[in-house]
């Protein structure tokens, strides 16, 4: 089939000598299917990337969602280059810093100020600190299996951690108000915040929208009990709305964290907050050497301009829906059933009656070997650069991958 990964494997062997795990975290090989997925990339353009062996892929991971306009977007890259041509990493911020904070605090519904960091984890961690400072309380409620970053309070890992790191983090079950109420009863008066995503997107399960007014009721409880709502909009963000996904899913957070796609892949994250928590935000000391780097801020301006001018949100929704419809047709043709959940621009795909995910892993690996990069254990992402033809081609690839998967039987690897 011509899908060779020799150069990728050779690079991994080198990395293995000098980097823990070779590649760490979510980009590491554990969650994909080693032998089918490239581990190293050479370049990208639009909706495509090429691995170090020269294999071409239509990409549905898009830098884990950080690419929203496609790779190497000329306008965003030019904005960043232009800002950086005059130097960067100064000791003090530039005007971009103020202009972007002004723009975001006007644009993101209900927010009055912005604080920039680099990674989503920095932003969520700061938001939790602000909530604790604002309330003088310790406890933080999070949905079970939600991901809010890789710092000790939120990481799904366990090595190197102390029980104390998560002593005040408590899980509720998404869409299960009773589990929230139980925590409130247990910790009444000591809850600083609930951290929520606009909808639930766990790694190994379907994405789940808020049902029966769950998020609205959570917000009501927060107001009544005096704790804050942090919206972790890092993954969904501008794929739902340029005003913040809470405007689409209809809840009002006190703090909003954005990152990933806000600057089309340039490293930038931001924590925004309401007027009410501004003083608490000021009271928290935080900083990072690179947090005020203005290149990504210029890129963010350009990225938002492009998304607004082209109605990028609607465009991605349409492409995502085209992909979903195409995949469902492919599945039906091959006698399979798929469950596809989440926003159309961020579809989470699984096979019905495939609890152990063998078939999903086989299908995603087969599609990836043929040039449609599908991750078996993460929601996928669509960008404004995915054209109708790209999606059409993807569906053709999915058809061949599905035929291979079905031919391999019920438990392709077992």
């Amino acid at each position, binding site marked *: 089939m011509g899908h060779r990964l020799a150069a990728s494997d050779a690079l991994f062997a080198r990395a293995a000598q000098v980097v823990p795990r070779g590649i760490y975290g979510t980009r590491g*090989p554990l969650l994909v299917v080693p032998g089918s997925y490239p581990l190293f990339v050479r370049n990208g353009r639009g909706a495509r990337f090429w691995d170090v062996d020269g294999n071409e892929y239509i990409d549905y991971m898009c830098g884990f969602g950080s690419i929203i306009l496609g790779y190497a977007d000329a306008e965003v890259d030019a904005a960043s280059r232009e800002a950086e041509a005059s130097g960067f990493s100064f000791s003090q911020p530039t005007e971009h810093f103020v202009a972007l904070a002004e723009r975001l605090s006007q644009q993101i519904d209900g927010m009055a100020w912005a604080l920039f960091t680099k990674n989503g984890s920095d932003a969520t961690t700061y938001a939790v600190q602000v909530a604790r400072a604002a309330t003088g309380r310790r406890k933080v409620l999070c949905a079970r299996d939600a991901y809010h970053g890789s710092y000790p309070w939120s990481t799904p890992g366990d090595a190197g951690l102390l029980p104390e790191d998560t002593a005040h983090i408590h899980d509720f079950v998404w869409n299960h108000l009773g589990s929230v109420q139980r925590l409130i009863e247990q910790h009444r008066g000591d809850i600083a915040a609930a951290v929520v995503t606009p909808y639930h997107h766990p790694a190994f399960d379907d994405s789940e929208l808020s049902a029966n007014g769950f998020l609205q009721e959570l917000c009501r409880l927060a107001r009544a009990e005096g704790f804050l709502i942090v919206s972790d909009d890092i993954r969904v963000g501008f794929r739902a709305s340029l005003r913040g996904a809470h405007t689409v899913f209809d809840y009002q957070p006190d703090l909003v964290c954005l990152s990933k796609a806000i600057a089309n892949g340039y490293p930038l994250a931001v924590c925004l907050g309401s007027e009410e928590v501004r003083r608490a935000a000021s009271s928290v000391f935080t900083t990072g050497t690179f947090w005020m780097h203005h290149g990504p801020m210029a890129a963010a301006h350009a990225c938002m301009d492009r998304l607004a001018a082209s109605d990028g949100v609607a465009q991605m929704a349409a492409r995502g829906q085209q992909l979903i419809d195409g995949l469902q047709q492919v599945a039906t043709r091959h006698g399979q059933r798929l469950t596809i959940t989440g926003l159309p621009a961020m579809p989470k795909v699984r096979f019905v009656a495939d609890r152990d995910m063998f078939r999903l892993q086989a299908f995603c690996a087969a599609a990836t070997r043929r040039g449609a990069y599908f991750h078996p254990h993460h929601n996928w992402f669509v960008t404004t650069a995915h054209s109708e033809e790209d999606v059409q081609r993807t569906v053709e690839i999915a058809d061949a991958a599905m035929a291979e998967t079905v031919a391999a039987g019920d438990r392709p690897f077992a």
Partner: protein
Amino acid sequence: MNADLIKSYLYLHAVLPQLTTIAARDEQARAAIDGRAASIQLRTVRGPRARLHANGSGLSFARELRPLPSLGLLLPSPAVAVRMFGGGRATPLPWWGLWRPGIIGLLRVLTGRLAFYLTASKEELERAACFDAAVGLRLAVMVYAIAVLTEHLPEARQAAADAPEGVAEFRFADGSAGSVRLSCPREGPMRAFLVDGGVTESQAAPANLIVEFQDTRTALGVLSGEWDIWLAIGQAQIKIRGHFPLAQTILRIMGRVGQFLG
């Protein structure tokens, strides 16, 4: 929970059961058992118990003691059990039965063979033409140890309680050694069993998770700590397929085994 207690459970309930495979496969062990019926019981004060029963042609293992063993040995503390199995000096006290040199001799042969399979170097194993079998045994110890930790180490017990229900199968792609299964029930600790080692349990349900080593060489590298498991995964020398949440729990507990079993 102190480390000696955990270790004593690991020695008696993860290491010792592998004697059943050795008794079935190893010439010297088979010869020692041949025609002999005897039961040897080990009792640790405030710790694990174990019973080995030779029935003339094979050996069985149980955690529960039975009345009237041929020989009962008392280990006065978990620390003594750890010293006895960990290669240190420790003398167990006979608490039941006659101090019969024949049975002591049988126990010596069996534990000697066990120590050989579990600690001999690559070269020694190759010279003895039992490399694959030894790696199979070492893998079985690891998998049994995961199950034992879910009984006795609070963090592992909690991880197992939070883990999804399912069965993981550890196997070799080239079939060079037998498979071991680890079952994670809806409630309670995990349980390990051999699929086609000395003792076979029914394997009606297909595994929900498969951890497949390319070959015994890869497995030994990883089990001995010489190779990093993450790198072996990245290089497709270990393939993990199926129920990933279960895999994550197992990998997490597996990371703790080395802390107790060097």
